């Protein structure tokens, strides 16, 4: 196992924060953009850039409700994203085990 084999979509500081935050929610729960920004500590521009990458890979999905100023966009970790995060965590543990040995 090498670092290069880790999922590059998750293995980046900002995206790791995003996915780990969403994975802490129960399956099927959503998080608003502003609360996600608050929990990850990322700037809006940075957060949106990484959300796009994750959405393009179908790791997350966005849901929009309302219109205009009353609109609210929420982010949800898909089954694919949750599985990818679990695989990433397992690979990371395996990798660290190799490094320790």
């Amino acid at each position, binding site marked *: 196992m090498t670092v290069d084999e880790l999922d590059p979509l998750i293995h*980046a500081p900002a995206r*790791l924060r995003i996915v780990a935050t969403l994975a802490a929610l129960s399956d099927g729960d959503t998080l608003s953009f502003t609360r996600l920004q608050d929990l990850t500590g990322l700037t809006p*521009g940075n957060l949106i850039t990484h959300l796009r990458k994750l*959405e393009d890979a179908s790791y997350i999905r966005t849901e929009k409700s309302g219109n205009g100023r009353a609109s609210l966009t929420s982010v949800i970790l898909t089954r694919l994203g949750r599985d990818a995060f679990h695989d990433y965590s397992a690979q990371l543990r395996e990798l660290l085990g190799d490094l320790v040995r």
Partner: protein
Amino acid sequence: MSERFDTFSPRHTEPDPFAAALEAGTAEEDDAALDPRSAVALLAETRRRTERGLDLRPPWLTFVAAVVVLVCYGALWLSVRGEHPYTGPAGWALGTLYGTIAVFAVLNALVLRRATSGVGGRAARQRAIIGPGVAVIWICVYVVQGALHHAGAGSAIAYGIWPAAGPLIVVGSAATAYEAGRERPGTAAFAAAAVVLGSVACFAGPRAVWGVIAVGLCALLLAATAAQLWQHRT
């Protein structure tokens, strides 16, 4: 720019922070290299931060609940311990009970509001169903109390054993089933222990039942606080 993330405003009153960032051209990328040890540290920090941010019942709130139980049930016990014959808790004790519960309910609502802000989906739907369900259960406990009085039960039962132990047994049973269904053995065990405490305390009689529950439930909540703190550290 894509229209996918055109507006983000959970409070529905503030200008959209995302749109402002897009207009200012502040979108940036951060694909910096991350070594595995840093990744593990980042994961742990993120998990800790998220769990604290979304915690519906932080340890300090459980500790406050322990104090509230001791004050409320303790006041009720003090007001009835010298009664012969037993007539039920005095007005000042009931005032202490309702006043303390009202303050705690407001505190609980503030914590819940903060923790669930921006969280939707399945959890929000469950909360919308559970809230009224628990309210109905609580109300029914007191409807039964009225029925006991109506059926001619003495003050020892209608104003002593049942109002002291009934809520613990009925609400605790519902909570045990709910927590077991959500595969949370720790909180299910706590709720089951409350049911056992309520059932056993009935043997203490209409006066001592208040004192037994005051001490027993306070001890259970303090144990729960310790368990939560231990869980946060590991």
